[in-house]
C-alpha cells in the first residue's frame, strides 16, 4: 500500500512515519473504512539492527508509527497495535545474537510504543520461539500492554527454525500471552489444520492472518481474490478462531470481504486438552510414561564435580546427549556444588544443552536465583524441581514458575520432615496443589514427588511411597514424579531392586520416573510397561528396541580381537582403544599411558595424514578413539582426587564477524586428543574477550581462525590487541583465506595449514 502511494523501492517504509505521516495515516484509514478493528502501526521493521543508519532513532520511528495509526483510529473504537517483527539477526545457538541482547532490543521498541500510546503489542512473523520469548518477557517486564503473538509456520507444522505448534502453544500460554496464532506463511486453507492443532494446546484466543495464497515466482504477485480469501478463511470460526486478518498480498478489499464473511460469532473455545512440557522442537506430552534423565547432577559423582569446578561444559553436555540417545524424554539439570556460582552455571549449562539436544529440561535447584536463571534461559516450557510444603519455599519459587510458565515438582515433605505414612504425604501434596492454584499455576502443571526412601534403611517405607503415588494419581488426579534409583542404595545387585520398584511404581500411577536411562534394564522395564499399559500401540517401539539388539553383540565381539593401542587408534576404534587403555592402566601410571602409548599413536596417525595415506575423517576418527583413552585416564585421576592431566592450555577462537567454525572445531578436537586443555571461546568472538581469556588463563598459545577475507581484518585487530596487552604468548592462525605470507603480515607467529599442523605447533610451544 505504501509502495502504491509512492514509496521509493528500497527505502525503509518506516521512515515515512516521520517524513510523511499523513500518507501513512491515509493508508490506515482505508483499512478502518474496510472494517479493521485493530491497526498494526507501521513499525514491523523498526529495531536497532534493521533501521540502524537510516537517520532516525528507534524511538522516533516507533513513536511516529504509533501516532500515524492513532490519527486514523481516533474517533472510533479501533485499537492501535505496536507491530514487532523479527530482529533480522539469528539468535544463539544457531546464530550469535545473545538472548539478553535480543531482550534489550525489544525493550527499546516496547517502551517507545507504550509511551506513544499503543493499545497492545503484536509480535508477528516469528519463526524462532526463543526470539518470541525474549520479546514477550520484554513486553511483560517493561509495559502494561496486552501481548498477542503470531508465528509463521510451514505446512509441515514447523517453523523454519524447527519450532512446533505444541511447543508454541505450551510455551506462550505459560508466558501469559493474551492471544496467539499464525500469520504469513501460507494461504488460508493450509493454516486451518495447524490452528486446529494449536487449539488443543492453549486456552487463549486464537488469531489467523494468512497470506493471499502463494506468490507467482516470476513476478512476486499474489493471485488469490479477496472473496476467495474470505471464503477459505471463514471455516476457522468453527475452530474457535476469533481474531482474523490478512498478511502478504492482502489489501483493504480483502479486509472488507473478510468483515462481510465473518459476521457470525466464532464457535466458543474449548479448554486445552493436551498438556506437557517442551523444548522449541520437542514436546513431552503428559499422556503416558515420560522418562526424566537424572545424570546431570554432581551428587556422588567425582568426575562430574570436577567438570563443574573446571567449567568443563562439554563434559556436562555429553551427559545430556548420552541420555537423549538412551531414550530420556526430559533432562533433569542440577549444577549445584559448593563454591560454584550456581545461577551463572545454570544459565550456561541450559544454553549449552539446548544447542546440543532437543529435550525439554527440568531445572533442579534449591536456590531461587539459580531456578530463575535457568527458567529465563530455557527455550520452551520447563519443569522446576522442586518446591515442598514449607510456606517460605512455596512463596519463593511458585511465583517464578508462574511467571515463566513452568510446571513444578512438589516434594511431599514440609517443616516437620517427611511424613512416615502415605496419608501424610498426600495431605502435603494437597497443600502444594492449593498453593500452586492460588498462584495461578494450572493443575496439570503440578507434579508430585512422593519421595523414595532407601529400602535397606527404612524397609516399610517402600509400600508407603507406592500407596502415596496411587493416592495422588487417583484422588488428586495429578501427575507424579519419583527419583527411583535411591530405593536400592546400599544393597548388592541394586538394579534388581531398582527395576522392580520402578515397575511397581509405574503400576501405581507414576508417569514421570527420574532414572538413569543409561541402565538398559531400567529402560527395558519402561519399554515393557508401555506395552502392557497400552501406551505403545501394537508394541511397535518395543519390537524396534529389541529387534536392533544383535548389532551391539557384534561390536563387543570385535573388541575381543587382539590388537595394539596404536592399531586401535589408527583404525578409529573407540571401544577397543578404551579397553586396551584400561588394561594398560593396570600396569602403568596415567602419565606413562599418555606419553608412551596414546601420544605416540596419535603422532603416527598424524604422519600418515601428512603423507596423504589417510584423509581428514580418518584423522579425526583416530583422534576420537584416542579421546576414549584420555577420558579413561581422566576418570582414574578424578577418582584419586587429582586434577586433570593436561599438557598445557590453549585459547581457541573464531574471530569477530565469522560465524562458521567447523575448521576451528576440528583443530580443537585434535588438540584435546593430544592432551591439551582447550579454552574454546566459540565463534564471532570480539578481540577484547580473547585478550581477557588469554590473560586470565595465562595461556602461552592462542589459536585464531578466520574464514572470510572480510574477517581477516578482525583477526589482525585481535593480534594487535593481544600484543598491546603485553601478555606473553604465541599466536597461531588458520582458516580458509589465510596463507603463510598473509599470516606473517598480520603479525601471527605461526600459520597452521590444518589440524595436524596446529598440534605440531602446540608441541613446539608447550611441549
Amino acid at each position: 500500500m505504501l509502495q502504491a502511494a509512492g514509496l521509493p523501492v528500497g527505502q525503509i517504509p518506516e521512515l515515512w512515519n516521520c517524513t510523511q505521516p499523513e500518507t501513512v495515516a491515509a493508508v490506515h484509514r482505508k483499512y478502518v473504512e474496510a472494517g479493521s478493528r485493530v491497526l498494526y502501526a507501521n513499525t514491523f521493521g523498526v529495531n536497532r539492527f534493521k533501521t540502524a543508519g537510516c537517520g532516525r532513532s528507534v524511538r522516533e520511528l516507533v513513536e511516529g508509527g504509533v501516532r500515524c495509526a492513532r490519527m486514523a483510529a481516533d474517533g472510533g473504537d479501533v485499537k492501535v497495535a505496536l507491530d514487532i517483527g523479527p530482529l533480522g539477526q539469528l539468535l544463539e545457538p544457531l546464530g550469535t545474537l545473545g538472548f539478553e541482547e535480543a531482550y534489550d532490543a525489544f525493550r527499546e521498541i516496547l517502551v517507545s510504543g507504550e509511551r506513544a500510546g499503543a493499545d497492545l503489542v503484536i509480535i508477528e512473523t516469528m519463526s524462532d520461539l526463543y526470539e518470541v520469548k525474549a520479546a514477550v518477557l520484554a513486553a511483560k517486564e517493561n509495559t502494561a500492554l496486552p501481548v498477542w503473538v503470531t508465528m509463521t509456520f510451514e505446512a509441515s507444522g514447523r517453523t523454519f527454525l524447527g519450532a512446533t505448534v505444541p511447543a508454541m502453544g505450551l510455551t506462550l500460554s505459560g508466558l501469559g500471552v493474551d492471544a496467539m496464532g499464525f500469520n504469513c506463511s501460507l494461504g488460508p486453507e493450509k493454516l486451518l489444520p495447524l490452528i486446529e492443532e494449536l487449539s488443543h494446546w492453549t486456552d487463549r484466543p486464537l488469531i489467523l492472518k494468512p497470506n493471499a495464497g502463494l506468490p507467482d515466482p516470476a513476478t512476486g504477485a499474489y493471485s488469490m481474490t479477496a472473496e476467495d480469501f474470505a471464503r477459505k478463511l471463514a471455516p476457522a470460526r468453527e475452530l474457535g478462531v476469533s481474531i482474523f486478518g490478512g498478511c502478504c498480498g492482502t489489501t483493504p478489499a480483502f479486509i472488507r470481504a473478510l468483515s462481510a464473511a465473518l459476521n457470525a460469532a466464532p464457535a466458543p473455545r474449548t479448554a486445552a486438552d493436551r498438556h506437557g512440557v517442551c523444548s522449541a522442537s520437542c514436546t513431552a506430552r503428559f499422556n503416558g510414561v515420560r522418562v526424566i534423565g537424572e545424570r546431570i547432577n554432581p551428587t556422588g559423582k567425582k568426575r562430574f564435580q570436577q567438570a563443574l569446578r573446571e567449567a568443563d561444559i562439554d563434559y556436562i553436555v555429553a551427559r545430556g546427549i548420552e541420555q537423549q540417545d538412551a531414550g530420556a524424554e526430559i533432562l533433569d539439570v542440577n549444577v549445584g556444588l559448593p563454591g560454584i556460582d550456581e545461577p551463572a552455571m545454570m544459565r550456561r549449562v541450559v544454553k549449552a544443552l539446548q544447542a546440543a539436544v532437543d529435550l525439554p529440561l527440568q531445572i533442579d535447584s534449591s536456590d531461587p536465583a539459580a531456578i530463575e536463571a535457568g527458567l529465563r534461559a530455557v527455550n520452551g516450557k520447563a519443569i522446576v524441581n522442586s518446591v515442598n510444603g514449607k510456606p517460605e519455599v512455596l512463596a519463593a519459587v511458585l511465583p517464578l514458575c508462574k511467571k515463566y510458565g513452568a510446571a513444578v515438582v512438589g516434594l511431599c515433605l514440609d517443616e516437620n520432615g517427611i511424613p512416615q505414612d502415605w496419608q501424610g504425604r498426600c495431605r502435603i501434596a494437597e497443600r502444594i496443589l492449593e498453593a500452586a492454584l492460588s498462584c495461578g499455576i494450572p493443575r496439570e502443571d503440578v507434579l508430585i514427588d512422593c519421595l523414595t526412601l532407601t529400602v535397606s534403611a527404612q524397609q516399610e517405607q517402600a509400600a508407603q511411597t507406592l500407596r502415596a503415588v496411587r493416592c495422588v494419581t487417583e484422588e488428586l488426579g495429578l501427575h507424579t514424579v519419583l527419583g527411583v534409583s535411591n530405593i536400592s542404595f546400599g544393597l548388592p545387585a541394586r538394579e534388581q531392586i531398582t527395576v522392580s520398584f520402578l515397575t511397581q511404581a509405574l503400576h501405581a500411577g507414576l508417569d514421570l520416573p527420574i532414572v538413569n536411562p543409561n541402565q538398559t534394564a531400567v529402560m527395558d522395564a519402561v519399554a515393557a510397561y508401555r506395552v502392557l499399559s497400552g501406551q505403545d500401540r501394537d508394541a511397535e517401539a518395543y519390537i524396534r528396541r529389541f529387534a536392533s539388539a544383535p548389532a551391539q553383540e557384534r561390536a563387543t565381539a570385535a573388541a575381543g580381537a587382539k590388537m595394539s593401542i596404536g592399531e586401535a587408534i589408527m583404525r578409529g576404534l573407540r571401544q577397543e582403544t578404551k579397553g586396551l587403555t584400561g588394561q594398560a592402566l593396570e600396569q602403568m601410571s596415567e602419565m606413562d599411558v599418555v606419553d608412551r602409548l596414546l601420544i605416540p599413536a596419535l603422532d603416527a596417525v598424524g604422519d600418515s595424514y601428512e603423507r596423504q595415506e589417510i584423509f581428514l575423517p580418518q584423522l579425526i576418527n583416530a583422534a576420537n578413539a584416542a579421546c576414549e583413552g584420555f577420558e579413561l585416564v581422566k576418570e582414574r585421576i578424578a577418582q584419586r582426587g587429582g586434577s586433570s592431566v593436561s599438557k598445557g592450555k590453549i585459547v581457541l577462537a573464531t574471530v569477530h564477524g565469522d560465524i562458521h567454525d567447523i575448521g576451528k572445531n576440528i583443530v580443537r578436537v585434535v588438540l584435546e586428543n593430544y592432551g591439551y586443555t582447550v579454552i574454546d571461546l566459540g565463534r564471532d568472538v570480539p578481540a577484547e574477550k580473547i585478550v581477557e581469556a588469554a590473560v586470565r588463563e595465562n595461556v602461552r598459545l592462542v589459536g585464531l581462525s578466520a574464514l572470510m577475507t572480510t574477517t581477516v581484518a578482525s583477526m589482525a585487530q585481535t593480534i594487535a590487541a593481544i600484543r598491546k596487552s603485553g601478555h606473553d604468548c604465541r599466536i597461531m592462525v588458520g582458516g580458509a583465506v589465510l596463507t603463510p605470507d598473509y599470516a606473517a603480515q598480520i603479525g601471527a607467529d605461526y600459520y597452521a595449514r590444518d589440524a595436524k599442523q596446529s598440534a605440531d605447533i602446540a608441541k613446539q610451544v608447550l611441549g
Partner: protein
Amino acid sequence: MEARLTGISRRETLKYLGYSGGPLPEEVLEQLSAGEREILRRAVPRAIWRLFDRGPAGELVGTDFTPAGEDIREFLKDCDQVILMAATLGMEVEQLLRRTQARDMALAVILDAAASAAIENVCDNLCADLAETFAPRYLTERFSPGYGDLPISQQAELFRLLDIARRIGISLSESGLMVPQKSVTALIGVSDRPQIRRSRGCEACAMFADCAYRKGGTSCGKT
C-alpha cells in the same frame, strides 16, 4: 517448481573431503553412507526465484539494484533478463551439522561435505527446471555475490529483493555469511544466445570454509 534434492554424489563428497585416492577402510565407507543418508533424510530443500528485466545500465528494472563490478557486467552482457535465485537445505541440516560437531567430529566433516554436494544438487535441479521453463531462451551459469568482483556485501540486496529470510528462512549475518551455511544465492542471465560456461571460482563454493584442496594451494578442478 519445487526444490528437489535428488541425490548426493559420493565422488563430490569425497572431493570436498580432500580425498586423494587409496583404499577406503570399511569403517569410513560406513560413515560416508551414514552421512549421506542422514543429509538426505534431514534436508528440507527450499528454493525461490524471481525474474527481472535488465536495464541499459545493468540495473534490475523496477528496483534500485545494479549488480556491481566488471565481472558480472561481462557475464550478463548478452542478457536482457536476470533471474535472482536462492536455495537452502534448511535449518534442520544446519542444526545437524552443528550438533554433530559436539558428538562426532569425523562424522561432522563427512556431513559437511555431503551437505555441500546436496545443495549443489538442489541448485543444479532448479537450474535444469528453469532452463526448461525459459526454453527456447538460454540461461547462463549461476553467479553469486563473492564471485569475481561482485561484492559479498550485495548479498543484502538479493535478500531484500527476494525476501529470502521470510520466504525460505535463510538468515544473513552482518559480515555477509548465510545461516544455514548450506545455502546459495545467485544471479542467472537469460538470453537469446547460448552462453559459454565460465568458472565460478572457489569463493562461491559451499565448501569454501574448509576445502582441503584450496588450503593445499590447488583446487578440486571443478571450477
